[in-house]
């Protein structure tokens, strides 16, 4: 199947223009008159309610990977592909109890770095900044890459053009409206994703029933149903641990904790995690459909667009464009907003200008949104064959943060050097295993090694951390405001 054989370029440009203008207008309306303080611009006034919280969490977690890499893994690994990928829901669900503890410790917190710096000290904090910056940049780049690949596959729009459109639109409305614009557009994008996915899924399985799909797979690729497929076994728990790392450490999610009202924190993470599960299951099952029907898949990233377009023709192609454009923009805007918040606070204020005023912080955050967008465009220009394999490099990095953060949140004995060496050694061993053993299990290795390191350090030399240090930070911040 050639690129651009589903939807004409003009039709694609019209749809892109419609949604791009819509997001920008909404960004302007939501941000108008409200972005004058960092509390408003970066945390939407810290008053976000339940429904917006659920939808922004869900939308931010439905990424280009969910809509394009989940079916890729399902296509390559069969049942373990989409079951294993669905483990990413663990990140949202099991962060709920941690989130409420974080909210109580730091009700006026600014970043995930705030917590690491106070809890574990400077060395661990610096290591954490490196880990999270690399991860967030990798995450942002993969969204741009997915956008470029999708638009080219569906409509023939050149990869670089599609990728740049995605980044520029996100830069504009995130810059104008801040987190309020991001959350507001997330609500609409999440609704679009869920509704259009339901339509595609229902049509697919009404057109070709589950029984026929099963027979087709047995005929064309019976190993995809093999639960003992070695690659599937290696992959099975990687995503669950990797995604716990992404969410437990990621400033996207900590920013939302600080932005929402405390009474909605736990429910928002539980509900969004459960609702999110629907997405990789549907996109994964559509990949099995592709196997059963023996569809030609010239590039593994194109499984979902090809299936939807084959079933529903141009309507399917339009729906896929809407789903994937919404998922990419909803994630890219969240990454830009949270990374600018993180770098403004943890690098600019904490390292460069301790006396930075609120106005200066706001200006720096806005400049960083532009810088991140441009960096994303430059790196995404080097197109990688598999978005997911490239992104998997971040698995051991973020996996190394899981146990240090859990222990640091709940136990005052958690050793700060254990956290520091956990980040370093966990990341290093995980990256080694990516290249020497299997990319599919590198996050398991990174998370496990980091856990062993932090637990051993804590057992042999328990700290006596004073929880009131968080209260002192809160008083300092109240004084600043």
């Amino acid at each position, binding site marked *: 199947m050639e690129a651009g054989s589903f939807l004409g370029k003009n039709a694609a440009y019209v749809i892109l223009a419609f949604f791009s203008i819509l997001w920008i207008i909404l960004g302007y309306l939501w941000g108008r008159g409200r972005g004058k303080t960092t509390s408003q611009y970066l945390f939407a006034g810290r008053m976000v309610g339940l429904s917006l919280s659920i939808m922004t969490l869900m939308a931010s977690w439905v990424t280009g990977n969910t809509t394009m890499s989940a079916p890729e893994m399902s296509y390559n690994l069969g049942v373990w592909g989409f079951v294993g990928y669905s483990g990413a829901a663990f990140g949202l669900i099991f962060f709920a109890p*941690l989130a409420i503890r974080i909210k109580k*410790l730091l009700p006026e917190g600014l970043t995930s770095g705030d917590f690491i710096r106070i809890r574990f000290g400077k060395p661990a904090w610096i290591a954490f900044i490196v880990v999270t910056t690399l991860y967030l940049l990798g995450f942002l780049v993969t969204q741009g890459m997915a956008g470029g690949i999708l638009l080219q596959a569906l409509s023939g729009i050149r990869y670089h053009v599609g990728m740049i459109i995605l980044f520029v639109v996100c830069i504009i409305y995130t810059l104008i409206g801040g987190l309020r614009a991001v959350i507001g557009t997330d609500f609409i994008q999440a609704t679009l994703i869920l509704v259009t996915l339901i339509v595609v899924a229902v049509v697919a399985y009404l057109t070709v029933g589950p029984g026929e799909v099963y027979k087709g797979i047995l005929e064309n690729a019976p190993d995809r149903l093999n639960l*003992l497929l070695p690659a599937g076994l290696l992959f099975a*728990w990687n995503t669950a*641990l990797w995604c716990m790392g992404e969410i437990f450490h990621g400033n996207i999610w900590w920013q939302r904790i600080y932005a929402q009202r405390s009474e909605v924190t736990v429910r928002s993470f539980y509900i969004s995690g459960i609702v999110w599960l629907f997405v990789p299951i549907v996109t994964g099952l559509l990949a099995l459909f592709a196997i059963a029907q023996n569809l030609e898949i010239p590039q593994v990233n194109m499984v979902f667009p090809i299936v939807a377009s084959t079933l529903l023709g141009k309507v399917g192609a339009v729906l896929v464009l809407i789903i994937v454009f919404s998922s990419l923009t909803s994630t890219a805007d969240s990454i830009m907003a949270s990374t600018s918040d993180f770098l403004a606070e943890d690098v600019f204020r904490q390292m460069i200008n301790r006396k930075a005023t609120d106005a200066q912080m706001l200006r720096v955050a806005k400049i960083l949104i532009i810088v991140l967008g441009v960096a994303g465009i430059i790196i995404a220009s080097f197109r990688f064959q598999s978005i997911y394999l490239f992104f998997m490099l971040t698995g051991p990095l973020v996996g190394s943060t899981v146990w240090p953060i859990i222990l640091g*949140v709940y136990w*005052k004995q958690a050793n700060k050097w254990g956290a520091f060496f956990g980040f370093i050694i966990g990341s290093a061993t995980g990256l080694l295993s990516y290249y020497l053993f299997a990319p599919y299990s590198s996050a*398991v290795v990174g998370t*496990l090694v980091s856990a062993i390191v932090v637990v051993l350090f804590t057992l042999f030399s328990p700290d006596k951390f004073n929880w*009131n240090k968080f209260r002192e930070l809160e008083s300092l911040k109240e004084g600043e405001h």
Partner: protein
Amino acid sequence: MSEFQLSLLVFFIGLAFTIATIVIIYVGNRRWKNRDPYDNEV
């Protein structure tokens, strides 16, 4: 060790470790239920 045996080993290690991670979160959450978040006795 064959490729299959190694894969199976990684699978069970991953499973056990994922369960351990969930359990540690559960235990930690229970410790802090209905407590002052800054309680240094815990």
